């Protein structure tokens, strides 16, 4: 499992979630945050990684469909089992990274 790279599966969803949560986050920062989130998911314990990537595939397919980002926004705002847990993980990773590295960030992700 260590050799399975999650970037292709995880980064589109992480990217879109950041657009929903932190729409004013500069593009270069968004890419840096997405890279960090993917790296952390790559290093999850193997059983956890299997489960997370299974859910990630479902969401990856979902956002590829028309209106996918809107559905992602709805899921991100609700405590949905499994899918919601995955988004919760991504959100916690990205928020922690953004404010640890750029503490002056505004709540919308813009430079305060």
């Amino acid at each position: 499992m260590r050799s399975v790279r999650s970037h292709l599966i995880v980064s589109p969803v992480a990217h879109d979630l950041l657009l929903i949560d932190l729409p004013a986050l500069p593009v270069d920062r968004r890419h840096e945050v997405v890279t960090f989130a993917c790296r952390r998911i790559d290093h999850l314990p193997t059983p956890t990684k299997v489960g997370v990537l299974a859910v990630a595939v479902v969401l990856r397919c979902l956002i590829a469909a028309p209106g996918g980002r809107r559905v992602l926004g709805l899921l991100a705002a609700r405590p949905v089992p499994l899918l919601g847990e995955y988004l919760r993980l991504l959100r916690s990773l990205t928020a922690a990274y953004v404010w640890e590295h750029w503490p002056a960030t505004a709540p919308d992700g813009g430079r305060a």
Partner: protein
Amino acid sequence: MSAPGTDPFAAGTRSDPVIDAEVLVIGSGAGGATTAVVLAEAGVDVLVLEEGTWVDQGEVTPYSLDQMDHQYRSGGVTVAFGLPSVAYTEGRCAGGGTEVNSGLYRRPPVDVLERWRHDARIVDFDPDHLAGLADRVEADLSVGPVPGAPTAASEALRRGAERLGWIHDEIPRWMAYAPGANADEGVRQSMTRTYLPRAVAAGARLATGCRVDRIEMQGRRARRAWVTLDDGRRGCVRFRHVFVCGGAIQTPALLQRSGVRGNIGSNLAVHPTVKLAARFPEHINDPTEVPVHQVKEFAPDLSFGGSASNPGLVALALTDQWATFAPAVRDWERMSVYYAAITSEGRGSVRSIPGFRDPVVTYRLSGSDRELLRSGLARLALLALTAGADTVFPSFRGAPAVHDRADLADMNAAWSAARASVMTVHLCSTVPMGEDRATCGANSFGRVHGYRNLWVNDASLLPSAPGVNPQGTVMAFALRNAEIFLADEANGATRG
């Protein structure tokens, strides 16, 4: 200081090295380092294997994501599955959890020791003897109160408890301070500063970046350990005795991978915690320190304290209700994160699965645990408001912001344990010690039931979660068991 000693697996020795040691210690945290120093200073030939690397203090920022990358397993993103799942962290570096925790110290409570002795049928187990061992640990690690004024976040806890008339105290830390130093100028007396250098000075060998894949058994004896080094080489260690000290998750996982059966990995106990972020009118945040006050009014069921609160962790505490809490993140300098920890009735398990590098960890909260978490979060919110917080942001999905006591009813109504961010940093009891073979994985001295030379000497041995920070208890137990091992070796006897 940097990693002491010479790496016994240093490149160039041979392609697939084989090493001999009288005693192999697997893991270099509170249990492993304590075991190593006792045995090495008694003249035993000791080899310590550590899966993580040696990281000097100051190399990484405490409580940062960078520290998690370097010193935690899986970057700190580890979880026990359940409803809710319980996030946990494990140190993975020389010194283990002692390098990354808050350094707060509690003695093993006497009533807990008595209960363990009775319930688990632990023999030759004298709480007074344990108290003497705790004295030694405290001297070795410079355990004492923090000098100077506490941080503003810690003072807020004390103030809130004082106003409510709740029992509170300041927890000593294992920190060394120069004369006249302030609270934030201490040097953590972790294992890389204390027992590991002492063990190496006494002749122990320490190898970092070395994962033990399995221990080969032959009948009732452990024969050798098969290891993988960070550079990909495989190796083998032959020994007379082996002490497994990888912590409450990795120790049972290794034993299971090695074919050891019995009560291994089925009794995981933790202190589940829920948290909130509290915003005050004044600047309160200290990104590099943790509060030293704890509130024990409802102990041992419930304890309140403060968490690391750098801006990233404040943001993290708000993410469960990001849609409405996000605007508060701009006030992170006026915010601090606090926790409510419970003594749980629930239990979990650690299970190795063939083909997977890591075990599956589960934890199931009991009904009363869920109720205790709810009441704990409500009382913690009351404590923060009483301390002067203008708003409290509880960490569960659907939580309302709490501005005054009247809002606590709304918070209680919205509470659901399944929606909460539950986490723990105290894991234990996966190879509980005692003579009751129906419930215990190791005997009263840490020797795994059914084996002659296979020992456990870490948090896995505690029969249950002690209700306080377990590290002091782990170290006192490790001292006791290592010294009994030495005495038995000298007498040619084996107890239990």
